[in-house]
């Protein structure tokens, strides 16, 4: 791959380039809007379920009335997390991945309708799965709680969606290469493999109990670190150079970041079962791999930071960069926490810290990055600008003040919980009391997150219905005049 090709996405656009990009965007508009809209509906659903689940942790009798009496934390927790991951995260990743792939490969999407049909089946699968969990029919296994009907549907529709990404990549013109494509192809390669393996090895006909539990731990980590993380890293790597208006600091470093993730990612997951009845070397290998995953984090974070270098003032003005910047902070924090949990099983195993980590990774990192991408993509698809910088600011700060503490409370609460578990004289009541505060704090955070996403959904629907601002200038968080020539650069023409 030549250095030239890596700079391709950020060259100053000629009128022909702009026309080509507009044509590419037109071809992806329908499926991208479909996936984003339904993804955001699932995000709202999972926020409601997550809020209810959080309340039930400190007030188990909440909403214990009539027909709802069976919907306890044991059902709400998997329902919320599966809805968040498969409903929102996957659809956001598909939408953003599809859009970036068409742009990077300079290939218009030829069958947008196939993708929309596949998307309908995906949504149907998630709906069936979530309803099954809520009505008391969940299957065992972390992130595998959907029943068989649901997973078969998800697998089939994912395969249909992936085919187009691979075809676009295979038929791209010479020189249209960028590291983001590797991340997308990688994620679309790892996930089906993980998903099929996990579901086959945990299906009651073939499963052997202990092995099924191991496979599910391996899978649950894999979904996070080999699908969500690469999709978000690919997105950030695509958008940061565009907004800053200069090429990636080091292309070889970006490639190194990708291949080190590929090398270590598949080995993680079993550290969760350390001390369990499986061969000792297996969780040990996973722990080591989880720590080694700090290498790609270092590559990516340093590269992104150096690309932005002296232009961190753009975080003030560009909504996209602001969300991606916040995501990047949690990218580093969550990987450090993941390494810490892998190294301190005696303190943190089976505690709330794991839930905190997963929330941080899925929401504070992945979702924030996707929000940033949506702020970038939607004006280009719909031809109008975001209506209100105020709503973007509310969305951002409510997520920062609400979303971040959830992860932090659960991680710190989990460490206290683990510490209390190790004190011999503690009864279980002491442990429950220990977590009470953290869980109440998390509930408060959920209220903020729900509010933030309601505002965002409203804003999104406005622009999707072309009710946004008609302007040549992008909606920025502070006006161009406040920041001089810097912010003029991120007007539509330069950035398109």
């Amino acid at each position, binding site marked *: 791959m030549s250095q030239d090709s890596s700079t391709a996405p950020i060259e100053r656009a000629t009128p022909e380039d702009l026309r080509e990009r507009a044509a590419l965007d037109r071809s992806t508009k329908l499926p991208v809007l479909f996936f984003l809209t339904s993804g955001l509906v699932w995000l709202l659903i999972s926020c409601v379920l997550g809020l209810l689940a959080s309340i*039930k*942790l*400190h007030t*188990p*009798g909440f909403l214990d009335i009539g027909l709802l*009496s*069976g919907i*306890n*934390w*044991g059902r709400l*927790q*998997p329902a919320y997390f599966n809805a968040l991951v498969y409903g929102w995260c996957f659809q956001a990743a598909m939408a953003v991945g599809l859009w970036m792939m068409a742009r990077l490969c300079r290939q218009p999407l030829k069958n947008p309708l196939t993708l929309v049909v596949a998307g309908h089946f995906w949504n149907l699968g998630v709906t069936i799965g979530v309803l099954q*969990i809520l009505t*008391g029919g*969940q*299957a*065992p*296994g972390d992130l595998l709680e959907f029943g068989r009907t649901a997973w078969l549907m998800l697998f089939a529709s994912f395969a249909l969606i992936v085919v187009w990404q691979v075809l676009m990549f*295979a038929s791209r013109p010479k020189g249209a*290469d960028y590291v983001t494509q*590797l991340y997308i*192809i990688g994620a679309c*390669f*790892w996930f089906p*493999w993980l998903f099929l393996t996990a579901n086959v090895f*945990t299906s009651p006909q*073939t*499963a052997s*109990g*202990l*092995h*099924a*539990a*191991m496979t*599910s731990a*391996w899978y649950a980590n894999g979904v996070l670190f080999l699908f969500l993380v690469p999709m978000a890293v690919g997105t950030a790597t695509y958008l940061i150079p565009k907004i800053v208006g200069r090429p990636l600091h080091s292309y070889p470093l970006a490639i190194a970041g990708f*291949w080190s993730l*590929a090398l270590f990612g*598949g080995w993680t*997951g079993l550290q969760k*079962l*350390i*001390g*369990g*009845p499986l061969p000792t070397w*297996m969780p040990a*290998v996973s722990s080591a791999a989880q720590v080694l995953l700090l290498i790609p984090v270092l590559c990516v974070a340093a590269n992104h930071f150096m690309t932005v270098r002296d232009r961190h003032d753009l975080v003030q003005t560009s909504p996209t960069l602001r969300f991606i910047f916040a995501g990047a902070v949690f990218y580093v924090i969550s990987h450090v926490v993941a390494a810490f949990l892998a190294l301190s099983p*005696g303190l943190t*195993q*089976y505690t*709330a810290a*794991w839930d905190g980590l997963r929330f941080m990774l899925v929401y504070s990192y992945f979702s924030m990055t996707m929000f940033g991408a949506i702020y970038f993509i939607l004006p280009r698809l719909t031809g109008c600008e975001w209506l209100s910088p105020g709503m973007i600011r509310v969305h951002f700060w409510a997520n920062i003040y609400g979303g971040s503490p959830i992860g932090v409370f659960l991680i710190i609460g989990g460490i206290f*919980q683990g510490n209390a*578990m*190790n004190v*011999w004289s*503690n*009864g279980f*009541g002491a442990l*429950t009391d220990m977590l009470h505060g953290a869980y109440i704090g998390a509930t408060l955070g959920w209220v903020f997150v729900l509010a933030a996403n309601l505002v965002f959904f409203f804003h999104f629907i406005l622009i999707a219905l072309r009710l946004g601002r008609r302007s040549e200038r992008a909606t920025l968080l502070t006006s161009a005049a406040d920041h001089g020539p810097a912010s003029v650069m991120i007007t539509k023409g330069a950035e398109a």
Partner: protein
Amino acid sequence: MSLKSLLFGLLATFAAPWLVLVVRPYSGMAHLAPVAYDEEAGDETKGFFPPTRSADQARGQLIYFQQGCVQCHTQVIRPQYLGGDGDEFKRNWGEAQDALAPKRTRQTAPYDYLGDSFAAIGERRNGPDLANAGFRFSTRQAFLEHLYNPQARYDWSSCPSQRHLFSKRTIQGQPSNLAIKTTGKHAPNEGEEIVPSTEALDLVDYLLALKRNAPLPISLGGAKPTPAAPAAPAPALAAPVK
């Protein structure tokens, strides 16, 4: 980078962990069968290890998964090097176990999950570990009452009521001998009784059978009993101090 070389790279890096962590262990674990205790080798127990699960108990385990009990409860006793003393069983997590439980038990072994379609190792400990839940309650009725109203026993408990697995009905003729005694908000009115469903009964059957006290056969690496120790009874009963 061409699609072919990219796919080759992905295949090479991902197939290794897949084969080593998932596929290879399966071939070793899928065909395990119960092991007979061998008296000649020094085992003092008769029969097979682990004790097999009845059909009711297997159905109960399914309920345990479906209702999400597995989300809050683990079923694993970790070794000494993890979590301080490592022997979670000894702690008074639920006072009742002190009176009934043997003072020592062993760390969980792979064979403990034999015959399960999914090992209920669990995710987190919002509730106490249930590897030895069978020792916490002396009767089925007491366990059913606990499932119906967990806060009656421990007011700090964050365990949700499972009352959707019970039904409230008017007593007709003789009251049911399965009817549970309970007080508080969801107690039965005059002339009513609360009876468990089949699901609740299966679940309690399963939970009462959770006793990891069968000694590990010597052929699987179990410790030889010391000559001074009294002979251990059959694994189905609560074993005394080993």
